[in-house]
């Protein structure tokens, strides 16, 4: 009986593996577009059809894979890291999280909205029960946050899961800044007792979800830093007037 079971299950799995992978990549693309939801020209990332998401992504979003020193990676190098397809969208953040920090590769999505450009970074960290991750969209000054979207692997509904289920949570991050006036990297903190709207470096936390909120804060602090080498390199090219 076990052999029949094994055959049936592996048959179904292999038969549907490709479509499942496609489904997963479209799900991730929607999450990335949700980070810039205000700038999609009136479209809603959740309501767009699968083909529309793919087409929109291909035309308007440039994908770059980076390593920890800020160097762009070629498609071949991404494939060698274990991701068939070679593009940034294929990088599995959970898999990267298991590697030692220096060896990770990270995706960067540059969304061209016509009048402005947005840099969408992906960060991953630890929630209370399992991984939490998010896509943070930065404006072209690479300092102000234009939007965010979060997700989790197993947080408690109503508490930690609010980072995804509550639409007002990502909105708190809009217009917050990650560098202070002296140019120091401070990231955005989540304040349990509430943060003043005028404070550009803090947002309200989540009642009853201390560990998840701390996880989000740590994830932002560490995750955005991974992109600093690349950002510094393009800031200097921007200053000298050369567009990348």
């Amino acid at each position, binding site marked *: 009986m076990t052999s029949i079971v094994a055959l049936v299950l592996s048959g179904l799995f292999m038969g549907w593996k490709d479509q499942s992978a496609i*489904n*997963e990549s479209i*799900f991730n693309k929607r999450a990335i577009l949700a980070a810039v939801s205000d700038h999609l020209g009136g479209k809603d990332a959740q309501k767009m059809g699968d083909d529309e998401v793919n087409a929109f992504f291909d035309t308007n979003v440039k994908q770059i894979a980076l390593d920890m020193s800020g160097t762009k990676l070629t498609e071949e190098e991404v494939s060698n890291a274990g991701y068939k397809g070679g593009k940034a969208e294929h990088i599995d953040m959970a898999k990267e999280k298991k590697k030692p920090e220096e060896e990770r590769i990270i995706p960067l999505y540059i969304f061209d909205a016509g009048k402005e450009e947005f840099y969408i970074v992906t960060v991953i960290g630890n929630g209370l029960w399992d991984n939490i991750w998010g896509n943070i969209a930065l404006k072209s000054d690479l300092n102000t946050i234009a939007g965010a979207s979060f997700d989790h692997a197993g947080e408690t509904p109503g508490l930690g899961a609010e980072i995804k289920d509550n639409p007002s949570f990502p909105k708190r991050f809009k217009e917050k800044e990650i560098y202070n006036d002296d140019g120091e990297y401070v990231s955005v903190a989540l304040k349990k007792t509430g943060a003043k709207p005028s404070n550009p470096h803090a947002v309200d936390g989540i009642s009853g979800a201390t560990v998840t909120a701390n996880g989000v804060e740590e994830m932002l602090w560490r995750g955005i830093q991974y992109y600093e080498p690349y950002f510094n390199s393009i800031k200097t090219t921007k200053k000298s007037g050369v567009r990348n």
Partner: protein
Amino acid sequence: MAEILDKDVVKVKEPLFGKVEKKLLKDPLNDNNPITVQVLGVCSALAVTSVVYPSFVMAIAVVFVCGFSSLFTSLIRNKIPPQVRMIVQLVIIATLVTIVELVLKRFQYPIYRQLTVYIGLIITNCIVMGRLEAFAMANKPWRSFVDGIGNGLGYGAILLIVAFIREFFGKGSLFAGSGLEMKIIGGSPDYFINTMAEGSWFGWYANNNLMVLPAAAMFIIGVLIWVQRSYNPKLVDIS
């Protein structure tokens, strides 16, 4: 002394949907409901029911798993060595649940992401194992299948009732997350009843946040048990 006549034993072809089958389908919906009367499978009823659409998918998954695991177990019931009985049942249940997961991953990915852990937990759902032990191991395949489907439907009915109440009062919408979302009452113009509109009669209305937490499901199920026992004459004195 009267003669004892030896009637020829005639094998009667049992009807496919006779009285017994109808009873097997009807009982779990009310008189022998897995959640409110047998009190099995309450865990997932608490966790999944905050929104209606995932509960609906969960209910269909449980009906499928319960029905077919009962069917397959009943088919091989006489061939399972008693020492490995539970292990074999577990393999059957686990296979079916894995099939459900693979189907969801292929055809309805967003729901798969929303329900990740809970679909896997159908394996531990007491209703499935409970029906296998109580019925499928001792009854014929078709009857076991119908019993499994019936119990799955009973579970599904309770799930949907709880989910309707929780989503409506906790979020003001129904079927959020599916293509047919109905936004009924809330604070923005997308909703059918806009509580923030000028001169709205419902300006005082705010979503009940307790309904979003699993504890609310426990209260609602408690109330359902109470209501059911008060009105159903067969259940009035059983505890």
